[in-house]
């Protein structure tokens, strides 16, 4: 699936988008996989209360299932307007 990062999450991880092969069943399982990769992921995902996640462009909770998902995006709380 495609994993996208925005704002300071993108800056900490160092890229806006990547292809991730995963069998993670939920968003939180995917986060654990990413955290185990490299320090920069650990830094980006250190405090999940400071993050939001969207699966296929819909806001969801971190325990949301990933079955059939094409795109997962991680970002800080939004600051539009």
């Amino acid at each position, binding site marked *: 699936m495609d994993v996208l990062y*925005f704002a300071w999450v993108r800056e900490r991880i160092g890229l806006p988008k990547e292809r991730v092969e995963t069998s993670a069943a939920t968003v939180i399982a995917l986060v654990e996989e990413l955290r185990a990769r490299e320090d920069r992921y650990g830094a980006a995902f250190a405090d999940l209360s400071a993050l939001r996640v969207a699966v296929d462009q819909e806001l969801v909770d971190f325990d949301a299932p990933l079955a059939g998902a094409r795109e997962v*995006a991680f970002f800080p*709380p*939004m600051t539009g307007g």
Partner: protein
Amino acid sequence: MRIVVQEAGFDAGRELTRFSARSGAGDPGIGAIVSFTGVVRDTAKGTLEVMQIEHYPGMTEAALTKIAQEAMTRWVLGDVLVIHRFGQLAPGDQIMMVATSSAHRKDAFEAAEYLMDYLKSRAPFWKKEILRDGAQWVGARDEDEDALGRWD
């Protein structure tokens, strides 16, 4: 309903004129038009050089459409306009605009406030302030999240 996400600037006066003409022509029962224009504000005491606005193409348009559709089910509205910019903006630049039309002012005002409250916290935009001596991401404010509570 018209949802616009663009990098270019817009002319709020012309947009309002067009919105008003279209609302009135489409429905003679329209008696109220409310508009709000947001402007890039320098909260850093004159040191803000650029406001960078990042967004999530695709989700942004979908989220704004959903928010506008929800407003149209909650209030009796003739039409809704949402314009939001992204990219590099300067202090004083117009950043976004909403407009609503309705038979009565209460619906038009409330719907415009609802649109503003939701697009601040539920549309995927992020602001970064480029200051004379550094840069910082604008943090989400608890008050903005709390503001959604009144629409439950």
